């Protein structure tokens, strides 16, 4: 297996009001090219910090140790791009200028071009006052050096690929005219517009209802297969992750607890914490709490 990236002894520490919080500590992990890897953990486990570190989206105030090494052969060769590196397809409140200058990578990947990022809340990743076609076209223009008309043609193709109804009309629609699930489809279209090698989905379905969640998961599965992307699927839901990922890494309190093939993690977890996460899952085949002995007063 060819590694897309190798994470070596990664530590991230946040400073807030003179209080230091360790978000990740000594984490090492290989991500193979073309695999679907899920990062699982509860709140405060460091899973989102890991995603942000890989995408080089951590705030400047974060103190980072260790290395993230990218395989040069897996990255796109430099093209003449209109904008300099560092611009992301997703938008954050702070904008690109406040993000860290990460010293720890070689062959630095370019966000938006080499990495597509899908966040939990599509409303905050999309610009509310820009037509969605332009938001997708902008990514293709920036990273692929296309002209506007080519970029719009690509945006339309992408809207078809994410199965948005009536892609022609959707090009000119604004985010508020779409449902939550449709907005997430648009955010995914923007994330993959430049043909990234790595797609990171950070709780990308957590704000959606069960039915829409299943649709978005199958969309991600199809797009990742069609484009040969590597997927990093960040989730609190181990059952959902198991439906999509080939491999699962379990994080807790900023440390990697265990990682392995999905089947091994689900059927024969080595770690007690992983087992407790599996036991806490309330599936449609679990014994209802109403019936469990010892639950009565």
């Amino acid at each position, binding site marked *: 297996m060819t590694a897309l990236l190798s994470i070596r002894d990664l530590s991230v520490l946040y400073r807030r009001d003179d209080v230091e919080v360790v978000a990740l500590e000594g984490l090492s992990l290989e991500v193979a090219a073309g695999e679907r890897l899920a990062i699982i953990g509860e709140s405060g486990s460091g899973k989102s910090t890991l995603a942000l570190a890989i995408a080089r989206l951590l705030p400047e105030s974060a103190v980072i140790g260790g290395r993230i090494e990218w395989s040069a052969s897996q990255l796109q060769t430099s093209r003449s791009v209109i904008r300099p590196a560092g611009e992301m397809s997703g938008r954050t409140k702070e904008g690109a200028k406040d993000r860290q200058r990460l010293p720890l990578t070689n062959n630095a990947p370019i966000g938006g071009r080499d990495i597509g990022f899908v966040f939990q809340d599509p409303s905050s990743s999309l610009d509310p006052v820009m037509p969605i076609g332009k938001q997708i076209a902008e990514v293709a223009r920036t990273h692929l050096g296309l002209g506007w008309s080519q970029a719009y043609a690509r945006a339309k193709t992408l809207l078809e690929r994410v199965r948005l109804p009536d892609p022609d009309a959707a090009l000119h629609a604004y985010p508020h005219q779409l*449902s939550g699930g449709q907005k997430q489809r648009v955010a995914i279209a923007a994330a993959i517009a430049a043909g990234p090698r790595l797609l990171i989905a950070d709780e990308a379905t957590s704000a959606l209802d069960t*039915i829409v969640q299943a649709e978005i998961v199958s969309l991600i599965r199809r797009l990742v297969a069609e484009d040969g992307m590597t997927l990093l699927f960040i989730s609190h839901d*181990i*059952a959902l992750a198991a439906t999509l990922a080939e491999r699962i890494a379990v994080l807790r309190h900023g440390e990697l607890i265990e990682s392995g093939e999905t089947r091994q993690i689900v*059927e024969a977890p080595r770690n007690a914490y992983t087992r407790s996460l599996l036991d806490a899952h*309330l599936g449609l085949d679990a014994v209802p*709490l109403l019936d469990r002995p010892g639950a009565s*007063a």
Partner: protein
Amino acid sequence: MSLLAVSNLAKRYHRRGKPFPAVDDVSFEIGPAETLALAGPSGSGKSTIARLVLRLIEPDAGRMEFEGTDFFSLSGAALRARRARLQMVFQDPLAAFNPRATVARVLDDPLRIHAIASRAERPRRIAALLERVGLDAGLAQRAIHEISGGQRQRVAIARAVATRPSLIVLDEAVSALDVSVRGQILELLLDLQRQERIAYLFISHDLGVIRAVAHRVAILDAGRVAEVGDARAVIANPQSAIGKALVAATPTLNRNRA
């Protein structure tokens, strides 16, 4: 006899100038110490029903009998008195409470407003409520924003049970919790139900959670009840299209453990 009987409930909103039925001719009953779950996709009317039952919004049509009274016609002191019997817990207690208030203050309010305990008696009652929901009485002086999400949801439950309700509306009350905490909160709710004979209107998008704690389930679609029945029977063998879609979309872990 039922504790709560809702009949022909309706509420319309307007979307881009057009009337949009959020809740459309919905009827259901809940018995004492029973849990009825409302399931359904986003926009199916679950939370609107919760808000109507709590009279946070007014219905366009329909009746609600609660503890033998016509709840929608109550007003003034009679409504306030009956409200003590009908409590609520929402998804995000940080949004429901003043984050800078202390836990004691959050629990003092219902005891004072509903004249349940005298000023001198209240600190002891607050300590007992905290203990009842599995929290240390020492937490009373902490601010809401200082405690964990699970602790906060326990405080929300303590506040709800402070007025000795017969029914609590739980609107996605465990949806934002980590799974390890979620199990403990569900156990607490079941324990309170058995001990105090509290009924729950349990709103959730998660069929796994519903199956774990609810006696019956009503599956909603576009503001209407698509099907209703025993929770396990409906989830094992849904009859409606939306019920089938919800079951099919629920992720399952295939654990073939020895």
